[in-house]
């Protein structure tokens, strides 16, 4: 029996290193009849904002080579409805629930978090400072070190729970931003959010997502994620939760070797509902074959 237990910083212990990625798993309750939610080390919810958001107009998604571009625009039910409607199921999950928060302004992030603090079952937060598809908020908080410094500092002061900052690859050097998160006592960083991408229908000459430029995800971006995790792992001491194009167990091992302590499954949830089960099985087999008893031994062990 391999020990899959994963510790992310001081505050978050997971029974295995596999989480869901925000925006690809609803609020955690959509698939309760199809997937055993208990298989996940944790669930990361869709981004929540202070007020409900309708999201962007159609078309919101397009399929591209080995991936997809989305421009959903943080459509969500808002923090109040989330607490009212989703607490019952989520509070009874044996895995940890991380709530992803977003906002148009710093105040909105803060007010959203304050409301969530009343819910004891929430294990921690992932701050989305990297959404490429909204006009205000989103990536503007995550692209400039001084702005990120301010907002992470403010949110850190509001909670003692696990706090993870989700970073964008659409920056010159992701390490500088991870260092800011570390300086401001974030417990972890997660990376990468989607990569800027666009696609055009050559018949109609129209863009295939409403905002022209959206966020590329899926297997196509996996090497970009591995590169960002690798260089960030060498730059900061806080743990990294790896995201970006994972579709199988071998991908997860690759992320761990590059320096991720845990991973989030995103786009794969759309095309393989058995992904988590297959990944956990692979991790066990891989560790046995490698003579490793504890999965965390793999973290950062790429031989360079």
């Amino acid at each position, binding site marked *: 029996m391999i020990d899959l237990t994963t510790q992310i910083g001081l505050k978050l212990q997971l029974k295995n290193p596999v989480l869901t990625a925000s925006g690809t*798993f609803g609020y955690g309750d959509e698939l309760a009849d*199809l997937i055993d939610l208990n298989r996940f080390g944790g669930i990361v919810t869709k981004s929540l904002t202070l007020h409900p958001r309708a999201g962007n107009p159609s078309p919101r998604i397009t399929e591209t080579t080995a991936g997809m571009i989305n421009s959903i625009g943080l459509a969500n039910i808002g923090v109040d409805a989330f607490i009212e409607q989703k607490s019952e199921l989520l509070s009874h999950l044996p895995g940890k629930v991380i709530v992803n928060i977003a906002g148009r302004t710093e105040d909105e992030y803060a007010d959203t978090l304050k409301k969530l603090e009343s819910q004891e079952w929430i294990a921690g937060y992932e701050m989305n400072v990297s959404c490429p598809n909204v006009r205000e908020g989103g990536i503007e908080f995550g692209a400039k070190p001084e702005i990120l410094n301010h907002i992470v500092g403010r949110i850190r002061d509001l909670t003692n729970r696990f706090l993870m900052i989700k970073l964008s690859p659409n920056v010159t050097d992701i390490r500088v931003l991870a260092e800011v998160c570390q300086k401001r006592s974030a417990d972890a960083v997660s990376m990468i959010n989607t990569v800027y991408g666009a696609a055009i229908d050559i018949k109609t000459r129209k863009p295939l997502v409403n905002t022209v430029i959206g966020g590329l995800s899926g297997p196509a971006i996996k090497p970009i994620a591995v590169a960002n995790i690798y260089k960030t792992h060498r730059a900061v001491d806080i743990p990294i939760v790896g995201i970006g194009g994972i579709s199988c167990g071998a991908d997860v091992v690759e992320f761990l070797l590059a320096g991720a302590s845990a991973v989030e499954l995103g786009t794969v949830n759309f095309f393989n509902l058995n992904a988590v089960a297959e990944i956990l099985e692979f991790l066990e087999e891989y560790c046995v074959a490698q003579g490793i008893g504890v999965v965390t031994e793999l973290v950062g062990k790429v031989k360079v």
Partner: protein
Amino acid sequence: MRHLTETIILENNAVAKNIFRMTLKCPEISRSAQPGQFVNIYFSDQIHIFPRPFSIAGATDEILNLIYRVVGVQTSQMAGWKIGQTVKILGPLGNQFTVDASVDNHVLIGGGVGVAPLIFLADKILQGGIEPQFFLGVKNRDEMPDGKFFRQLQDFHASSDDGSIGFHGTVVDNFLSHLPGIKKSVAIYACGPEKMNAALAQLAGERRYDCQISFERLMACGLGLCQGCTVKKNSTDAEAGYLLVCKDGPVFHSDRVMFND
């Protein structure tokens, strides 16, 4: 109850130009499937990653029928699938057409491969002892599915854009040409291209017909996870928001949603 399952292909034949019917042995899904609902078919392909949604064209005990048009890489692959091959499938997904038996005229209007859910619906309505009226429009004779699908329908009306089969004109115009003979209350059930849907919605609005339309959208998941397959709610409120075709639909009452969004 939704099931993700491996099913076996019993038949997979062309029924018109580029239009195929696949018959699957799939009791988990067929026993609860209702007209209007759809299934996802999964492909082990890392290049084209999305599963593809298909309307259910019939379900009897253990058997599930799909009718699909070959339009891209995945459906071209499907056209080559052989009897006995297994297919990974999830369903039934989405909502369904609702039939109010007190209505006098049940009118099914399909455009092209939009015929799929309507064949299933016609079966159900006939089982209820009601004779539906069925209008199907295609581009030309080659795209008209095999007559055996419509043999049991007394009141079937074909049309084609080029006049090579049936009424020469759109399916909506064909329906309009029959309207003088239709006197009492009317319920429309439709599935077809956006232009047809929009024209029917307008007609239904003007004449106060109950009109249910099954929508098609590109879907990444079919389960409400990706929030990609939106249709705009019909409201004067600019912030009214969106419905998801996969989860809130695919069938919507025409006055609830916006067309040409």
